[in-house]
């Protein structure tokens, strides 16, 4: 049914109904936002995992990762052996005034040294303060949440498959070894002095 002014009345009704509902405003500084897992807030670094391989710095499209490192010589442990070298990280810094939060460095890191933290309150009055050095990046690591649980029925992580296979192999080797121990007389004889000892 159409009557004059129907549209006008409808407009008033819509605004009035909206007024009776709860507003959708996020009260940010009073109430912290509920961020989704995997929020890209700030990049955290586990220095111990970093091998100074420079992959992240090279992949970075914004060139905002600075890495300085040197090689330490580890003297050979055996006589006449070869000395080993090891990369030591001197500086690892990310300039968040350049970073575009693309996550390529986190993806590129082969040793899981870089992680996303959901923290986002690190605004500064001076742009130079936005370059976080490695100790600050290490501190962000405490705010990195545990990885999200997999979806039900999802494929297991590759590492778990590898570890399980290794464990199985070890268990199988054990099983193969045990029967040998019980059936072979030589080994029995070898075992006997031991029993005597205890």
């Amino acid at each position: 049914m159409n009557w004059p002014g129907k549209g006008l009345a409808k407009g008033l009704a819509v605004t009035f109904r909206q007024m009776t509902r709860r507003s959708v405003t996020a009260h940010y500084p009073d109430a912290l936002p509920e961020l989704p897992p995997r929020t890209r807030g700030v990049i955290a670094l586990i220095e111990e995992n970093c091998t100074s391989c420079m992959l992240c710095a090279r992949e970075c499209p914004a060139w905002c990762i600075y890495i300085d490192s040197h090689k330490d010589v580890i003297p050979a442990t055996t006589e006449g052996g070869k000395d080993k070298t090891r990369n030591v990280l001197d500086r690892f810094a990310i300039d968040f005034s350049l970073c575009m939060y693309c996550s390529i460095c986190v993806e590129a890191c082969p040793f899981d040294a870089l992680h996303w933290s959901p923290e986002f309150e690190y605004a500064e009055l001076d742009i130079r303060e936005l370059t976080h050095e490695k100790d600050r990046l290490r501190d962000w690591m405490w705010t990195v949440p545990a990885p999200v649980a997999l979806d039900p029925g999802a494929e297991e992580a590759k590492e778990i498959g590898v570890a399980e296979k290794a464990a199985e192999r070890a268990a199988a080797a054990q099983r193969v070894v045990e029967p040998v121990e019980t059936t072979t007389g030589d080994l029995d004889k070898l075992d006997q002095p031991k029993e005597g000892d205890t």
Partner: protein
Amino acid sequence: MSETLETVLRLAGVLVAFLLVPLLVGQVEHKAMAHMQGRVGPMYAGAFHGWAQLVADGVKFVQKEDVVPAAADRMVFKIAPAVALVPYLVAMLVIPIGPGLVGQDLDVGLFFVIAVMGVGVVGSLMGGWSSANKFSLLGGIRVAAQLMAYELPFVLAAASVAMAAGTLSLTGIVEAWNPWWLLWQAIAAVVFFVSGLAEVQRPPFDMPVADAEIVFGPYTEYGGLRFALFILAEYAGIVVLSALTAVLFLGGWRGPFEDQLGWLWTLLKTMAVAFVVIWVRVAYPRLREDQLQRLAWQGLVPLALLQLAITAVGAVMTA
């Protein structure tokens, strides 16, 4: 002596109402509009739901520099905000909120209020003309065109009530008011309210300040306190319009317990109408200039004339 004291008290009362009620309407607008749009509006000023937001705004406006454009007509430019504001103060003087509760009871109160409200618009016109700015000028001319178009249905609708009541005194009109007037004068009430909205340039009739096309119309060059005065004039205009609508068409202080709570009824009705003014602002988009003129001349004027005829028939039949 006591007569002087009474006059002073009445004037002080009107002044306080003039300074407080527009702020109240402004705050209601802040909050109601916000919630109608799914927001919360001001929350911090004054610590409780931003009740002091307009006070803070006022303090800010006072601190700002008073700039007059080099090419402006200085004198007119400076006077314009006062010309826009004072008429509403004067209009509030004669609007009764209870029997005897009025700044000055005039026998020609209705005539006076409508004449004075027209003057307020001249302030905007002066501001638009003297700013030496094309946007201001366009806005000023739109103000003038709007005044020309909407003053006629405004006056005709008011005349209908005056005819029905047989008096021009606002107090007399409320005294003669009858609940069935709500039906009898319904068309006049709508015409009066709509053309009143256009007269105080409230959305959807805010073509003169259409910020998407002419910046802020006549107020483009204004800043600081003078700008605040214009905004205050807008809200004082809403109060005067709402109070007039309440007094003329909704029976003013008439209602249950009118002997004790008459003034409360007037204030409640005024606030209800003011809320509708805000509500309409949120609900409707701005009218285009040609739509604005067509609504006035082809819609409201014929309706007002029709109402006059209906009123005349009713007045003759009941007399």
